[in-house]
């Protein structure tokens, strides 16, 4: 018994010391004042191998650019650290590694909406003013890579809304031009859905499931009515008449049966399918669906029967939001000079044009949209350029995660009929105000 209690003591001491070590570690980890390296004056020093952190580019185009870089920079090789496909998981990994200041992450691939948050937390470095040819890039894409008038990232590719319509059915109903406003769209629907060949179709769909797609569609609806979600200082402005008009358009769409009843579960893919299978007349979606819709292998029932234009607004053409990705440099990497050089190389117009051969991603250089060789392969590019030129970003706020969640919460409550439009917007305004005052 005595011996037993002695061994017991040793266990207790061991675990106690482990626990104490743990406390000590915790204390160090959490309460040391955090000095972060990045400041506007930070120097880009250090050459050598770096990691490029991104989800996989299935087209292989990104890898080709990297291979080209590696061939000419044998001492500054870039290796790819792959992240999961899901954007949530990507952000989680990026934040975790910034938290522990890991130097493994060199150049990071960021969603445009994360720019403010990463910049404000000093998880990415401000870029030198003349580092990039921002003059030849589409303004909206540069704006989306900028935080408080400082460029923090290099625009990599972009995305804007397109309005897909069934040209065959519009023609059959004797409508010459696609609708430019919501009212014109409703009138067109009335005429087309009366046709026998359009029996059972719905008018329109976008993305209304409770995720980022809803934020996009709500932002566009408000912007298309002439409003904004936040002003230039980040203060919310969703208690305005324009915001109400925008949200009401979506709410009424569900109420009046303009949208398919299951559109409330639609993300990008479900919307594409509804259109591709001939279930809806009009569709708001990104450019990626163009290829599937025009496939002539029998998988698309609308090939050669559709066309694209800008999304409709309340009293004129609508306003698109901006998608896409930027590249930025982690302040915790050793080889910042290489990182900067690599970003310049990777996002150059030359590389962007080369990637177009493999990738369907929309480049950030305006001249590529009018290049005849490019347009021949991607006939929607001129329309997309119009959309991008008028595009407005989603709210540029530091707490983007909480902001988009509040927007989705209230917009979803309104379109699912749980709250009336006024209450939902008032609640949204209050939530966003609470977030911006922090």
């Amino acid at each position, binding site marked *: 018994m005595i011996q037993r209690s002695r061994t017991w003591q040793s266990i207790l001491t061991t675990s106690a010391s482990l626990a104490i070590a743990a406390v000590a570690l915790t204390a160090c980890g959490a309460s040391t004042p955090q000095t972060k390296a990045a400041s506007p004056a930070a120097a880009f020093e250090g050459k050598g191998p770096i990691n490029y952190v991104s989800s996989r580019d299935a087209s292989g185009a990104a890898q080709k650019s990297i291979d080209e870089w590696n061939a000419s920079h044998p001492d500054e090789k870039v290796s790819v650290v792959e992240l999961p496909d899901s954007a949530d998981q990507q952000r989680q990994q990026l934040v975790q590694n910034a938290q522990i200041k890991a130097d493994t992450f060199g150049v990071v691939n960021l969603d445009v909406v994360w720019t403010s948050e990463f910049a*404000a937390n000093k998880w990415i470095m401000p870029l030198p003013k003349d580092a990039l040819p921002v003059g030849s890039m589409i303004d909206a894409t540069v704006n989306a890579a900028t935080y408080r008038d400082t460029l923090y990232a290099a625009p990599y590719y972009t995305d804007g809304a397109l309005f897909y319509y069934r040209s065959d059915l519009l023609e059959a109903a004797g409508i010459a031009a696609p609708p430019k406003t919501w009212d014109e769209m409703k009138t067109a629907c009335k005429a087309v859905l009366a046709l026998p060949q359009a029996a059972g179709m719905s008018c329109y769909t976008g993305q209304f499931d409770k995720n980022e797609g809803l934020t996009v569609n709500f932002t566009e609806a408000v912007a298309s009515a002439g409003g904004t979600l936040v002003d230039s200082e980040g203060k919310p402005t969703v208690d305005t008449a324009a915001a109400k008009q925008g949200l009401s358009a979506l709410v009424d769409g569900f109420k009046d049966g303009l949208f398919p009843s299951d559109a409330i579960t639609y993300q990008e893919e479900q919307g594409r399918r509804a259109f591709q299978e001939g279930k809806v007349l009009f569709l708001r979606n990104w450019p990626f669906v163009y290829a599937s819709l025009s496939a002539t292998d029998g998988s698309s029932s609308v090939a050669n029967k559709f066309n694209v234009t800008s999304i409709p607004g309340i009293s004129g053409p609508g306003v698109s939001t901006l998608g896409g990705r930027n590249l930025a440099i982690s302040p915790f990497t050793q080889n910042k000079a290489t990182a900067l050089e690599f970003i310049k190389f990777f996002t150059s117009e030359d590389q962007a044009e080369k990637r177009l051969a493999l990738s369907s991603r929309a480049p950030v250089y305006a001249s590529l949209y009018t290049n005849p060789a490019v347009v021949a392969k991607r006939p929607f590019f001129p329309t997309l350029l119009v959309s991008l030129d008028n595009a407005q970003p989603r709210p540029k706020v530091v707490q983007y995660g909480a902001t988009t969640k509040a927007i989705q919460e209230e917009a979803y409550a309104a379109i699912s009929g749980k709250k009336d439009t006024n209450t939902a917007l008032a609640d949204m305004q209050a939530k966003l105000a609470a977030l911006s005052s*922090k």
Partner: protein
Amino acid sequence: MAALLLSPTAVVLALVIAYPLISAIHQSLYADQTGIDADGFVTEGETFVGLGNYLNLLTGDAGDRFLNAFANTTFFTLTTVSLETILGLILALAMNRAFRGRSFLRASILIPWAVPTAVSGLLWRWIFQSDGIANNLLGSEILWTAEGAASKIAVIVAEVWKTAPFIGLLVLAGMQVIPEEVYEAAKIDGAGWWRQLGSITLPLVKPTLLVAVLFRLLDALRMFDLPFVLIGPGKDSVETLSMLAWDESNQLRYGSASAFAVILFLYVAVVAVVFVKVLGADVTGTKELRLARKKTRSQKAGPAS
């Protein structure tokens, strides 16, 4: 001797859990500063707020969310674990019977548990989408993945599918060590199938069953992946406490995320203690089996010993 046998376990567990746990408790007493300075940078450092994070959870908007998540977690745990227990028992009874193709049955029962959780979440999301196979077979137009009661049902169906085999396999192992003699003795006494189930099988597998259910309880209370992948983050109908903790840390509010984690830990601990105390006094002893064995052996093998 006992200490020698137990110490490796203690060391490993201390290494993996002690540090995160203490770190979480420590963190839960601090609030991150969320202000933005004049240059637009997030102000750094943390302030000690004592139990402030915990109090914040229980009041106002956050309080409603917390209560909702708490209710969802409890609801899912109760429904899924009881359904799993029943189904698991049936599975075990089925696997324990002699018939052609028994090993095929065993293999098929193992499959749901063997499919990686993330993949099974995607699979069920596919099955339950608005024009998926579920609606197709049912001839219905239920929006399973939208907010509402249907999404709860979807989560329960998928979760029970995935984890009933866990209980089934553990209980089966428990049934396999019940000596045949016990059943023979009962048969001689004229006990029917149900009688034998009630007075032999169930009492004798009870300890194993309780352990299986206990571990399922612990897992179900921390449910995260399945509702997250199947229905999506931020949907009130299925938001669990783990999802809430994830969301808080995703929004860089580590203080309150840790407070959620600690509360969840305490909740799980209370449930476990109550469960063991109320139902599982037997976890430490199995008199029934010993008595049963003694009886049969004294009948059969008495002279030998």
